[in-house]
């Protein structure tokens, strides 16, 4: 492990932690603009985090230690995930520790614990949210894995860093299988990040909520960590998408200049991606919970189709 690798690893994580709330704020701003509402501040998520960190954290009397532990665990999972994903550079010392499949497992750990904590208190909303979260999770996970398999078939590696390296070094070619995988990935990430066709991130205390129902019992610094972890998850999913489908601009050589150049490129890509997600969210209506399996079955089908098309066309 050389010094440069340490530096880029550190920069990767710190940047993810700092920029994740900004992406959420940017998305909310675009959503508000597109829906003819006056937009909240771009730095609103930071203000919310700041407020929550200085508030007292109230915990139910019969909460088990698990309930206190989960915010730190979930936040840790998301931080580790953002350490593995090549955002700025492919020279990440931590990346060999986990490939794309382990990354999906990491998200699964976070999901399992967040659901356990929601059921721990024993409120109706908590267990309702936990069940819905698990329903979505078990349908979205195979689709996400299949998307990752398709891109690893093309690049002959399941490690995200080597995927990015070989994708950005190959000469330009059109991969029809990646078109399928791309659509499937967008659908999965909308479902996983509680975005509109599946869950409405703006609802609070409604019967249709999923993510909000899970974290309803948290307050103070615990809630702040949960919110931050949710932003990090969105950020991590966006970066996985960018790494697989638009890998250009990520620094693949060990030079500080390339690393510095990668940051503005990433910010521009994320800004465009965030605006596109806001457009999708504005154009679609939230679907009934019983239509969600249909939505995710379509995503899974598209992902499988991408893999089949790869075998048929060899591209």
């Amino acid at each position, binding site marked *: 492990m050389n010094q440069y690798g340490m530096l880029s690893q550190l920069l990767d994580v710190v940047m993810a932690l700092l920029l994740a709330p900004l992406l959420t704020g940017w998305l909310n701003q675009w959503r508000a603009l597109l829906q003819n509402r006056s937009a909240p501040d771009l730095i609103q998520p930071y203000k919310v985090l700041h407020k929550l960190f200085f508030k007292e954290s109230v915990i139910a009397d019969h909460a088990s230690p698990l309930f206190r532990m989960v915010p730190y665990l979930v936040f840790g999972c998301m931080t580790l995930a953002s350490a593995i994903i090549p955002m700025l550079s492919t020279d990440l010392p931590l990346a060999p520790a986990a490939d794309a499949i382990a990354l999906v497992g990491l998200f699964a750990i976070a999901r399992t614990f967040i659901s356990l904590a929601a059921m721990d208190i024993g409120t109706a909303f908590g267990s309702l949210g936990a069940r819905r979260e698990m329903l979505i999770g078990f349908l979205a996970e195979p689709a996400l894995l299949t998307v990752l398999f398709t891109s690893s078939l093309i690049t002959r590696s399941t490690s995200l860093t080597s995927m990015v390296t070989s994708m950005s070094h190959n000469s330009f070619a059109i991969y029809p299988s990646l*078109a399928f995988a791309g*659509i499937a990935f967008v659908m999965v990430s909308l479902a996983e990040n509680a975005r509109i066709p599946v869950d409405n991130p703006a609802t609070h205390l409604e019967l249709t909520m999923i993510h909000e129902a899970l974290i309803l019992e948290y307050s103070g610094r615990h809630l702040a960590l949960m919110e931050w972890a949710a932003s990090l998850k969105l950020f991590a999913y966006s970066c996985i998408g960018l790494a697989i489908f638009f890998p250009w601009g990520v620094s693949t050589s060990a030079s500080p200049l390339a690393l510095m150049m990668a940051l503005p490129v990433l910010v521009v890509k994320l800004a465009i991606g965030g605006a596109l997600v806001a457009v999708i969210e504005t154009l679609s209506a939230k679907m009934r919970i019983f239509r969600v399996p249909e939505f995710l079955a379509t995503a899974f089908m598209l992902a499988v189709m991408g893999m089949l098309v790869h075998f048929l066309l060899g591209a």
Partner: protein
Amino acid sequence: MPNLVGQLINLLASILLILSFAMLSQRRILSLIRLFTFQGVTLVAATILLGYSTNQPHLYYSAALTQVLKVMVIPTLLHRLINHLNVRWDTETLINIPTTMMIGIILVIFSFNLAAPISSLSTSIARSTLGIALACVLLSFMMMITRAKAVPQVIGFLSMENGLFFSATAAVYGMPMVVELGIALDVLMGILILGVFMFQIRERFDSLDISHLEKLKED
């Protein structure tokens, strides 16, 4: 750049496959017609590209024929038909949609396997897309089977014709002009006759549900 054109044809073939699946999962008749129009546009683009890459001007003619017939005339006819019949509402499928999707995947694997030995005999630039074309035919066939109402069945029939047309173009650069014109006119006539049939069915049963046709006499 023949390589890029080949890749583009592969991409368009994949888009055709996506559209077939979208039609399979679509509940609304209006969206079905829109998807059918998109399928026509994709077919036109693929045919033009194939004609360009192989220098076969007759493919331009069949592209023009497809454009006029399947992108302009037939969707207009279908729109008029559903306005007259007043059937704009959602249609329920006979099997639920996730199951349909899973059967669809099996059909795709089947047709990819079936087409593999055939396409290895062909010398066409688009030979590898034969499996996709076959899959489109089978998926449209399944769409006809899983729908209870008459209008989606007709759209399934038309989309099957699209798949057949694409497979002919992909495998052997299209059929002779006479055959193509014949098929095109057949499809047009088919639409007109099926339209009359649909009016008759509704007149008789007050519904477009074709399961009524299983009864031979009134009871």
